[in-house]
């Protein structure tokens, strides 16, 4: 028995640990460091229809226990992602979750339609929560009706299950979660970054060229955990939790709050081996808790 295996719509995960979208590129760089087949899955960088060159630099800034980023969805575009990146990833035994972004509903639909046909793409992650682009992104993530419509439109064309990635920058995240569930989402991934800002104390101007950026890292863990806990009570589709995860204890916490699997983002920059390290430590941690299987963790806060 594999004590770490988790089954989710479209995803047969050998363990519940995966790198978060945008924090792992398309895997090539981290493949220099370890075998990507160790991972439960990989959430690849957001893919848009066309090539995107992203925002001007500086694109990142450090904050207390966190960082801001405004990459601006830079990516080679649908075609190249399919023919180069996904193709290259086929050498690993790891399911890919393709993060889909766009400006209009049609963009999302187009990307979803094609990328979901790729052999190793086992699920889509609808990015309706990117705070760093002018149109699309977060605008879809703050209105339950708009979010539901987009979800339904993508579901209609996708060959694989669709997870919707929620934005924490809302008054009531449960409302959005329920709306996308009702619209047919197979799962939820959460949370994306909190909108934040850092100023250059000397000049008074924003450090990030884009002005604002998305806050990630350990600083946001309490907010992410609270939201996972809240949404877990309100939906019955599975949640992939993220936001500040950096240690095996963080994984336990998110799964306890109701996540069925987790993603690690910013922590990859701090410790590039963080994912395999956590995977290695999980069994020992289950022993410590007196649990046989990682799925026993899911939602135990609610018992």
């Amino acid at each position, binding site marked *: 028995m594999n004590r770490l295996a988790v089954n989710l719509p479209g995803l047969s995960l050998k363990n519940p640990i995966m790198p978060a979208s945008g924090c792992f590129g398309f895997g090539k760089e981290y493949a220099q460091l370890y075998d990507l087949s160790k991972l439960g899955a990989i959430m690849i960088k957001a893919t848009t229809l066309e090539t995107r*060159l992203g925002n001007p630099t500086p694109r990142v800034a450090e904050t207390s226990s966190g*960082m801001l980023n405004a990459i601006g969805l830079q990516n080679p575009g649908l075609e190249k992602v399919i023919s180069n990146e996904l193709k290259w990833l086929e050498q690993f035994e790891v399911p890919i979750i393709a993060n889909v972004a766009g400006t209009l509903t049609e963009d999302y639909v187009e990307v979803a339609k094609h990328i979901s046909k790729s052999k190793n793409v086992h699920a889509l992650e609808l990015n309706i929560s990117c705070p760093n682009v002018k149109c699309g992104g977060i605008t879809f993530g703050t209105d339950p009706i708009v979010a539901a419509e987009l979800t339904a439109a993508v579901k209609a064309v996708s060959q694989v299950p669709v997870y919707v990635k929620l934005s924490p920058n809302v008054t009531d995240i449960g409302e959005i979660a329920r709306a996308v569930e009702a619209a047919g989402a197979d799962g939820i991934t959460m949370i994306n970054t909190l909108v934040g800002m850092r100023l250059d104390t000397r000049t008074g101007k924003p450090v990030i060229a884009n002005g604002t950026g998305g806050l990630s890292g350990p600083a946001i863990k309490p907010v992410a955990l609270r939201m996972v806990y809240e949404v877990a009570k309100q939906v019955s589709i599975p949640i992939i939790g993220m936001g500040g995860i950096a240690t095996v204890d963080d994984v336990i916490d998110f799964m306890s709050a109701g996540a069925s699997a987790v993603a690690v983002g910013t922590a990859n920059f701090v410790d590039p081996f963080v994912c395999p390290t956590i995977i290695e430590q999980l069994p020992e941690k289950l022993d410590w808790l007196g649990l046989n299987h990682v799925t026993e963790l899911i939602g135990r806060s609610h018992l």
Partner: protein
Amino acid sequence: MIRQERMRVVKIKEIAHNIFEMILSGQLVHDMKSPGQFVHIRVSDSYEPLLRRPISIASIDRDKSEFTIIYRAEGRGTTLLSLKSIGQEVDVLGPLGNGFPVHEAIAGETVLLVGGGIGVPPLYELSKKLVEKGVKPIHILGFQTKEVVFYEEEFLELGETHIVTVDGTSGHQGFVTTVLADLKPDFTTYFTCGPTAMLVAMENMFPDKKGFLSFEERMGCGLGACFACVCRTTEQTAVDYVKVCSDGPVFPAGVVQI
């Protein structure tokens, strides 16, 4: 190969005002390929500060499995790094990036090495490698003021060295370009590292020369995965952008839009 290693501090010394020289020991040294590569350092085990700091490799001693970094204690991270003591461990990720192409210079040639401030350190290992090969380096090293000048002796041992300070308190007065305008040196290739303004000046001063420039950009991963350190390229290039961390930090003149 890129490794993550807890390396031991063998030496730490303030060699100029707020400028520290640190020698680190570990196996990672043996994977260093070219001068101009850098390491990504986690300065403490806390999440605050969170991100690693990119610092150039200033000198390599393969026999001893040691390498040197030289850095200015400026913000929070580098200040914490300056408080380390001998025997403590530092979490180092590296070697990263592509350094200066030593093979572009041929024995007997004269080359120009131009550094500004904390852009000077990587030129030291570069110069050592060039000299080993029989290349003759001319060093032009710019600093703000006398207090922050470092490694003058070390560079002198390797070849002709001109120090220039903005306030004239050490060496010539002015910028590296002031010295270059006076000196009119004869050389085949230039290698430079320093503030962006200096890189721009170098490209403008020697539009027809072969040159290699080392760039700085804010980094996340340091590996090429996060798209934090992207620079747009000029029209002469086939790609739209390059990443400073993994495609650079060193690029041939004319590649990066500056």
